[in-house]
């Protein structure tokens, strides 16, 4: 669906991007794994609500263009039967908990209203997931793309931070190619764009992207502002890389800050729901035990009764849903107004309409910022009906309208702390790169040495490729630095390194333990159609 052709020429464009990603977490060997709940929480609070709002917008014929990046690891989990079954059980337990909460809070009207809200939400999620989508979340996204409101792009195969892999060109190529191939198998078409994990770009990366059919990517503000030669339009237009004709669009920091900032961004508003007061931590352990980790470890349940509250107030106050929704509507208007002002400031200085690129992690909307999906809904409706300055576009739309862009080389950059690599390269996680570099070399050597493997050997080489890709996930290094769930991230990294090295030894000795191989294939099911030769000579 294109924007209304009768609408007067726009003052400028707004390209909103939601990047949806979670690391591949799947533990068939255990009945319960805390880390799998990351996925269940995101489904409940972000992906299903977003799909619901987007479908409503499409049904109401609201002109809308939105870019959604779906990482391969996330898509794999969407499609996984085991995780689908576990999610269904998770939802049923949440509904049961909400029913108990309705009873427990019957004497407190504000909490009771919230309890009913959660009950309704969980039931709505179940109806959506089971009856409307038939557990096919990928199909739901695909349908929205076919209806013309979404452009779905991909990210690197396991969300590897590519600048830290630039010394292993074949590994970089594999991350790009495997992702593009998998995306094509899911959505019936190759992605036009790629979300570089953490906006991590290094000069020359565009050549690998171009070879795989990628025509644009997003980078952080300084990746464009520090480009050589200087970007004529600042960040208000993409540049096309000198190394290969792939467009790079820079993040607008003002629109970013208004949503991301913990201090003065929208999500920190006193009337919004407080993330950290969850009944999984607040209520008596015996009451909550049936609904948390079976080992009795307190976890988030998704049921929270308090609002952020003014900082001056020592106690958190009860959440009031209607007040929060009114605030979300006001904030949507505020955001829209400031984008209009930005466009009006920049437009007279340019010979084309300015472009504002506003990318966010999708999980911010709904999981961290509970009212985020509603804010988006309000925003899209306001943009459609309350103004004439902004036109929503994807970068494909922009490039179709403005095919001539300045050639320039973007600068090495990321949106992580400090703007370069240090979030993924510091004393907490630098130890991993020795192992990754050895694995990447071994994988390439094997791919070249065995160009036509079959049977058990082929299975082993394909599984080596999976273990390498999983070890390269930037999530582990990020978690090690952020200090949360570090044991799990270290364990996952070591597991994949050890699995790979053992398979490699067995391949070298021509004595593969089929039982061990089958176990890895059973657990690490990502990229079922992977071809290890992606690490070999150019194919």
């Amino acid at each position, binding site marked *: 669906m294109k924007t209304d052709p009768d609408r007067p020429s726009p003052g400028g464009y707004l390209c909103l991007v939601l990047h949806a990603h979670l690391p591949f977490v799947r533990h068939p*060997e255990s009945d319960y794994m805390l880390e799998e709940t990351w996925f269940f929480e995101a489904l409940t609070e972000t992906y299903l609500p977003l799909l619901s709002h987007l*479908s*409503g917008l499409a049904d109401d014929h609201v002109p809308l263009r939105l870019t959604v990046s779906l990482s391969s690891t996330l*898509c794999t989990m969407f499609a996984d*039967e085991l995780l689908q079954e576990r999610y269904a059980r998770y939802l049923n337990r949440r509904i049961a908990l909400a029913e108990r909460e309705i009873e427990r809070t019957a004497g407190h009207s504000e909490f009771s209203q919230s309890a009913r809200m959660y009950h309704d939400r969980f039931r709505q999620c179940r109806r959506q997931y089971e009856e409307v*989508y038939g*557990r*096919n979340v990928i*199909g739901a996204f695909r349908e929205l793309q076919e209806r013309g409101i979404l452009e779905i792009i991909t990210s690197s195969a396991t969300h590897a931070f590519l600048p830290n892999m630039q*010394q292993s060109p074949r590994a970089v190529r594999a991350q790009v190619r495997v992702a593009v191939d998998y995306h094509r198998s899911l*959505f*019936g078409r190759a992605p036009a764009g790629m979300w570089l994990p953490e906006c991590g770009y290094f*000069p020359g990366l565009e050549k690998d992207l171009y070879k795989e059919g990628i025509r644009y990517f997003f980078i*952080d503000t300084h990746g464009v*502002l*520090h480009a050589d030669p*200087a970007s*004529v*339009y*600042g*960040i208000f237009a993409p540049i096309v890389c000198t190394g290969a004709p792939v467009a790079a669009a820079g993040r*607008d920091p*003002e629109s970013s800050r208004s949503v991301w900032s*913990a*201090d003065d961004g929208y999500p920190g*508003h006193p009337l919004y729901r407080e993330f*950290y007061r969850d009944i999984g931590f607040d209520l008596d352990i015996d009451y909550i035990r049936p609904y948390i980790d079976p080992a009795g470890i307190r*976890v988030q349940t998704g049921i929270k009764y308090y609002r952020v509250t003014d900082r001056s107030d020592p106690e958190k106050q009860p959440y009031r849903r209607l007040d929060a929704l009114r605030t979300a509507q*006001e904030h949507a*208007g*505020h955001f829209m107004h*400031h984008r209009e002002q930005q466009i009006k400031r920049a437009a007279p200085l340019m010979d084309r309409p300015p472009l504002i690129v506003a990318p966010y992690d999708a999980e911010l909307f709904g*999981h*961290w*910022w509970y009212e985020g999906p509603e804010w988006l809904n309000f925003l899209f409706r306001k943009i459609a009906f309350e103004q004439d300055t902004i036109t929503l576009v994807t970068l494909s739309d922009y490039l179709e309208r403005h095919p001539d862009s300045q050639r320039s080389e973007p600068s*090495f*950059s*990321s*949106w*992580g*702390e400090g*703007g370069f690599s240090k979030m993924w*390269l510091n004393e907490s996680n630098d130890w991993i*790169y*020795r*192992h990754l*570099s*050895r694995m990447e*070399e071994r994988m390439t050597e094997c791919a070249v040495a065995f160009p036509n493997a079959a049977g058990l050997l082929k299975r082993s080489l394909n599984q080596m490729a999976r273990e390498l890709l999983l070890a390269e996930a930037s999530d582990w290094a990020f978690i090690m630095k*952020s*200090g*949360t769930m570090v044991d799990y991230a270290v*364990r996952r990294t070591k597991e994949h390194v050890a699995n790979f090295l053992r398979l490699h030894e067995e391949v070298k000795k021509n004595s593969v333990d089929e*039982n061990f191989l*089958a*176990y890895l*294939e*059973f*657990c690490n*099911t990502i990229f079922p159609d992977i071809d290890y030769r992606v690490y070999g000579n150019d194919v």
Partner: protein
Amino acid sequence: MASVKETDNASGAKSPLPPRPAAVIDRAYPREIPALYNETYLRALPREEGQFFSFWEISAETLRSLSKGHPEISPKTWQTLIRIYEVEQRGAERTERPVGSAIPVGEGEGSRYLQVPREDREYRVELGMQSGSGTYAAVCSSEDIRMPAARVQEIIKHPDFHADTPALTRISLENASAPVVAEAGGSTEQSSTGPRGTVVTSPVSPWSDHENRS
């Protein structure tokens, strides 16, 4: 809301599971990984505009070869050194200039964060051995690495595109530093407090904060 079940095809709907293996190995089985690999290599990864991370190893076989080729570099007296070179490539012509003095590497040391003086330049790192008498033998080298740029390039007018680049660059940077304050009640006033001239580069990942506080 349209149902997608009827339009569903195999793509994306289900991912068939491989068969359950005959024996499920306890996930707690030891996942030992080597500390080192007994191979010779040197890698360098840019970290920020003036710093990169380097890691290396020298295999026993390389050391033996070195001893044979350079008997004057006795294992008992040799010193492992890191040398950094600034690389300039102009067409086919390549020049290298040493950066600072060679850096001694401690015994057992396998990685280090290293400083370079200039952003937006290429560097190469080399690991070598030196005897007490000053004989030096290079052991291994990194690929050239490009350090990131940390400033806006000099303004260049482009003949095909017409814009007030300095003003647009200034607006881009000002945008980064103007905090947005949205009050309940819908105020659309922007606060004028906050640092100026810095580029916002670090959104907080919801997952890191989520886990940090739980």
